[in-house]
């Protein structure tokens, strides 16, 4: 499975409202998937564990964390830094 598919599966799995099936780069997880603040924290934690990254190393991670495309960019940035 591609890494980005893993992210999308996590987003769908942890979405407060089950039943969402379609997610793309432009999907806003707050507006489109009803993520509240606690669900977002859980998603952040899950991504960190799955990908072995640390979001606090991204200075602007709080600003990135709304659209799927931006979340993925953040993960890629952290993975590149780690390499």
């Amino acid at each position, binding site marked *: 499975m591609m890494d980005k598919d893993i992210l999308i599966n996590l987003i769908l799995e942890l979405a407060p409202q089950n039943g969402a099936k379609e997610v793309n780069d432009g999907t806003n997880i707050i507006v489109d998937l009803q993520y509240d603040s606690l669900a977002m*924290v859980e998603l*952040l934690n899950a991504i*960190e564990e799955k990908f072995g990254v*640390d979001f606090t190393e991204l*200075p602007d991670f*709080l600003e990135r964390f709304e659209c799927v495309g931006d979340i993925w960019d953040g993960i890629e940035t952290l993975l590149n830094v780690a390499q």
Partner: protein
Amino acid sequence: MLNNHQILQKMMRHAYGTVPFYQHLMDGDVVAESMEIDDLPIVDKECMVKSGDSMLSSRYIGKYIGKQLSWTRTSGSSGILHEIYWDDEDERKSLKSLWLLRKKYYGISPRQKLCYFFPSDIAVEKYMEKERVLAVSRSVLYDGSMEETYQKIKQFHPEWMILQPSIALLLCHLAEKYGIWNNLRYIEFTGEYLELPLRHRVEAVFGCRTANQYGTKEVNSIAYECPEGNMHVMSDNVYLETAGENVCVTSLRNYAMPFVRYQLDDRGKISRGVACACGRCGDILTLSAGRSDDFIKLADGGVMHAYALMQIVHSINYQYDGCIMQYQIIQADYDYFVFKLVLAEDDSEEEMKDILPQLIARGVDERMNEDCVTDVQFEEDIFPEERTGKCRIFRTEIA
């Protein structure tokens, strides 16, 4: 996307561009793009409190009027009371790093059952319980229901707790008497200076990990302790510096009520760019020791949490719209208390001077369950103690 320095610059321009308090400091000049934070004045709580609503950003007046901002009142450790406003989304952002680090360091997530104590003037209920959270009113500290409360906590069996050190100590006494529950993993200390012996006692009694979290209502989390014992500055939430020995903080998140170069009551030093064994590299805060003295001494040798008397002032402020700007309580003898008050300078000041002595005396008698001598003194200012440079809300003169 902005880095932390750019976010700081953005906050500086927002504060000095939209908040009347800061605009007055600059005589209406704007913050140039070339300006750094050192070019701006340091402000303290006293001058902010006296400014009243002019601390709010003009961009958030609509939300303020529409009661869409979250609100709290704080006194910190100095007894100077003021109101804090947050936009909900900004407040949530200010706490996200803390959640990430709780998980990373101590395995704590929002899904785990939590117990914490809240100020008694927030709600009438003694306990507020939802599926994963038990919130306990601090009124239990003085209304004789601590034992009942402990049983309730035990029944709820939280996996973690957020406690002031003085409350943790009270719970230790009860834990030794009634035992603990199985799945407590972590206690987070906040709100008071944490003395090492108290910490060791809590860890020994409850058999769990502990960590210290330093923050204020104005900016939320400022520093958080890693498993190596270092207080890492939450650099995505605040910019931290010192003015002399005093800690100064700039919120990177509170746009509704910005705090820029805001001098706190605490003293400490900041070590920049430290590579910690926990894996993080950044600024570390070391707070200076201050003697914690939060207990009223009783004639029978027992103690009562000083919050019992502090809450009298908080209730009066709630009822009379913040008439008391600063206060200090001194226990001169077992049944003799001095309340030093600085009142808000407004039309009701003289009326308050007539009403308050009786209100406070009644409150003291009720809390102490006996007739006490209560001396209410009205001051222009309450000055900090020379030794610590801090103004303690409560102190006892009983050895």
